Each structure stands twice: as C-alpha cells, then as structure tokens.
C-alpha cells in the first residue's frame, strides 16, 4: 500500500513538473525595464518622455483584438513604444541606445546573442533563423522576440503579446 501511495505521489509530482516544462523557451517573471527606467506593462507614458525626451513622432493606431487605441511614441534613434492609456504595452528597440533590463541581466541591441546563454539557456538553444524569444510573466501573453544577424549580433528586440 505504501508503495502504491508513493507511486501515485511520484506520478503526481511528475505530472506537475512536466506541465511546467512543456515550453521550449525560458520565462522571465520579474520586472522588465527599458534602460532600467521605463517599466514595461506599467503606466510609463510620462516616464518615457521624461527619460527619452519628446518623441519625434506620435501616432495612434487601433488595436482591434484589444479594442483599444494605442499611442505610438517613435524615437528615430531606435525605439518605438506603444501605449494603451498610459500602459506600455509594446516596444521595439533597434539600436544600442536602448536596452532591456531583466533583473540583473541586460539585453541590448549590438550584443552577441550568446550573451543570453547563461541566463536564458533554453531560449538560447532554441535559436532558429535569426530569432529566439523569452516568455514574460505568466508566459501566455507577453513575449520578447530577439532577432540577430549572421554575425550573431542582436539587431532587434521587441515585445509581443497575444
């Protein structure tokens, strides 16, 4: 009987364990900041202006799936930030003027993709066709998409959500 209980318990643990490991990429659950100042997925609209100055372009676009109108802050030196209300919902970084701070890890355009290897080994191993990604938060909604060139230099970091 004890053996049976143990077997059931081990099986239960395996089930839970496997459920959490089914993704092929790493998940980062902490705070994500741009240049260690602008908090992603938070009210950061004003802070963005304070830190990066007045955007070169401010546009709006309708997001039909969310049924929201997004405001785009476009900085021609390599960044685009998209807000719904004041929340930073999405960003695209294409120059080394900007970076993503994830805990103690700094993800930056211009770095080698191998820079993520130690912190995000699964995402590093899952590189393909010049891209890889890191899940954010619960891992079913926000993602970081990282693109790198043939020299393995990161060229673009963007967030995506579903």
């Amino acid at each position, binding site marked *: 009987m004890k053996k049976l209980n143990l077997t059931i318990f081990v099986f239960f643990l395996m089930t839970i364990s496997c459920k959490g490991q*089914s*993704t092929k990429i790493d998940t980062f659950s902490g705070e994500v900041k741009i240049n260690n100042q602008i908090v992603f997925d938070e009210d950061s609209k004003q802070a963005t202006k304070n830190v990066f100055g007045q955007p070169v372009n401010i546009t709006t676009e309708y*997001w039909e*799936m969310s049924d929201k109108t*997004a405001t785009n802050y476009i900085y021609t030196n390599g960044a685009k930030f998209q807000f719904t209300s004041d929340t930073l919902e999405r960003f695209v970084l294409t120059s080394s003027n900007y970076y993503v701070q994830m805990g103690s890890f700094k993800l930056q355009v211009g770095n080698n993709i191998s820079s993520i290897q130690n912190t995000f080994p699964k995402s590093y191993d899952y590189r393909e066709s010049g891209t890889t*990604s890191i899940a954010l*938060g*619960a*891992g079913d909604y926000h993602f970081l*998409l990282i693109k790198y060139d043939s020299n393995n230099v990161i060229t673009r970091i963007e967030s995506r959500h579903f």
Partner: protein
Amino acid sequence: MYIRLYAFLSICAVFLIVGNCDNPTSQPEKEELLDFTYFTESQYKAARTWKGNSALQSAVNVPPYGCYVSVYQDGETKPWKFWSIALNYPKRIVKKAEGAKVKVKIRINDVSGERLIRMANCIIPRAPKAKKMLKKLMTKGARNVREDLGQNNSGKSSDNNDDPVINSCIIVQGGYKCPDGYCFVSEEMCYSREGGYSLPEIIVYGDDGGGSDDSGGGTGGDDDGGYDPPDGGPDPGGGGPCIDCDPGGDGSDSECDPNAIDPPAGCEDVGGASPPDPCEGNVVENPEIAPSGGWNEWGGQFGYTRNSGNTFHDGTDIKADINSNLYAMHGGTVTDIRDSFDPGEYKPDSYGNYVRIKSTLSGDTVYLRYNHLNTVGVEVGDTVIAGDIIGRSGNTGNAQEMNGIPVIPHVHIRARKVENGQEKRVDPENYMATKFNNDGSVNVSESNCN
C-alpha cells in the same frame, strides 16, 4: 465539294454537342459512361422526363463556370443525359479551375443503394466558351438536349409523374488527398418523382485561392424541388482547396489540381471518397482548443483566460493547421471579409484576414467571425450553409508563430449576439457542436458531435 463540307460541318457539330466535356476520345467513352444494368427502365424514363424547371434553365443558361457532361445509353447516339455542372463557389476560388480536365466519378444512388458507374473526365471550359457553346446547343435544334433541360421541342414542359421511382441521385466526385488538403471535385444531382430537381452544387478543390476576379459568378444551388439525400445516402462532401500537393517540391500548385489523372507525388487517390466534413457547428473536424502561448491549457477559450486571468480573450481559438480548410459553423450570409493580408503577415493586435457571417440561431441574430485566415474563400453577400468552406486557416495578424513563441496554428472565432439592437460579445462555444471543459479538453457528454 459541298457534300464533303457538309459532312465535315456535321461532324464538327456532333463533336461540339457530345465531345466537349467527356474524354475527347468520346466514342469508346460512350459505352463506359453509363452501365444501364444499374438502371431500371422506369428509372431511365424518370430521368428523361423531368418537369420543366425554370430555375434549372436559368442556371444552365448562365454557367459562368462549369462544364457539360453528356451521358449516353449504350448503343444510342443521342445523349441520355446532358447537364451542366455549375460551379457554385466564389469565383476567385474556381477561377483556376477553368480549362481544367477534372477527373470525376459518376455514381448512381438509387433506391437500392449507391453504385459506382465509372470514372470520367470533364473539361471545365472557360466562361466565354461555355456560354458560346451552350448558345449553339440551344439554337441548333438539339432536341434531345432541350428535352433533357426540361422542355420538349415545342417549349412546353414534359410531365410524367407516373414513374415509380421516388428519387435517385448522381454523385460526381473524385480527386486526391494530399498532405495539405484535397484536390477534389464533388457534385450531386438528384431527381424526384415530383419532378423536383436539385441543381448540383459542384466544388472544385485544387487551386491556391489566388487568381483575379472576373465578371463570372457561380450558379447552382437547390431549386424549389428540394431534395434531401436519403438517409445513409451519399453526401456531396466537403473538402477544400488543396494548398500544396507537392510536398518537398517547389511549392507550386501546378501538380495539385483535380484535372490530373494520376495523383501528384505524395498524394493519394481517394477516388470518390468525400473529404471529411465537420459536424454542423464546428469550424473543423474534431476541434480542439489551441492553448495560448503553446502550453497554457486554458488560454484559448473565451473570457479572462490569459495573463493569469488578467487579460480578456474575446473568442475561442480552435486548432487548425496552417492552410487547412475552415467550414462555416452555421449557415448565413457573409457580411464582412478582410482579405488584405498576405499569408503569414504579422500585425500587432490584429485579426488579420477574416470572414464574418451573420446567422440566425435559435431566433437570435449572431455574427460569427473567423480570424487569422491565410485565404478568404467567400465574398460579402455570399450565402453559405453549415459545412461550406469559407477559407483556409492561417497566421495573419497577431497569430504568427515566431521562433520560440509557440503560437499554435488556430482559427480565432469571435461571436457577437444582437440584443436590443446592440452587438454583445458572447462565448463562441455557445454555437459550437463540440463543447469544452475549462481546462480545454473536450466535454464529451455536452458535445453534440462525438
């Protein structure tokens, strides 16, 4: 000299009448085309004496897409049967079928059951040619043709309700099953004792959904005579456009159309076997929830199912391999489409290409929208019935799988119910035959499609 010319013209005329759709080597075909051992005399008579039918006539007179099939009784020179196969499918879909030589199976489903008659080839003429040829047929005194269209030579309807045959159907279908879809043609024609005639709806699968529009339009559909296939009888079947029947090849569709006699490499000849049909209320056969993020079991369902319950998901994601056929869950009218995205084109927070269909369900007006399509197969104003192919699934808009972001290919179904003149978002699952548990698994006991 004149005799020779006359003889030559006569031969040409006969060839025009009988040879257009059948295999060009029509004489040997005649004997094969119809094996009358499968018919009773009364069945034969019944088929020859349809009531006049204006719906049929008008349809046959305007066959923008279609072909003509002549069937001969063994030993006779006049066609026993002549009909137009009209392509009742959005013109952008059937455009590529023009000129195709379609491999078909002709089967008879009579009171004793379904029986295979034979394989045949049918050339789908280009629309102008079709019209021209029909005009010739109708003006050259081809009496037998006029009779078979429902009128005798005097223009009066023939009428014979004394035949004992209740009904019989002819199924014309055949094609290939390929890894990514079907190359298939399907048609059903039925006769009833009451004179009702069910105009065939033929669907040719095998194009890539591209092609430009022209002025043509589909004809077909049921007429007032309305006929339902007998229980257990053949269904014209579903199926859908074949996407790439050249696995490992150059990706072109050139090898994937139903006009080819032999199946393309990697494809299987399914003969007359219909492609699978989903249950009414389902967008695909055996639907499954597509978890969001690839591993969250419940994020594909309607409601606050994402982002740890903080984000509302306005719809139900049903797994659908890229470029697979999507079927109308319910009948209705296409009220809106978007077809501006290239297959796989990404746009944040966008539904990509979609089809929106207005249905009346249990007295309610409901709009069901099918999103992230790669190919839209209908047009605004089209009337669809449940099970009609409305397009092909895809990853347009915010549904693109990028490396490591495990977006499971799916169709996002969104539902709106009209209440007090307002559209209210509702759970699409309310209108699905298959029901799901909260963890995304199929709720077998609640499902109407098991």
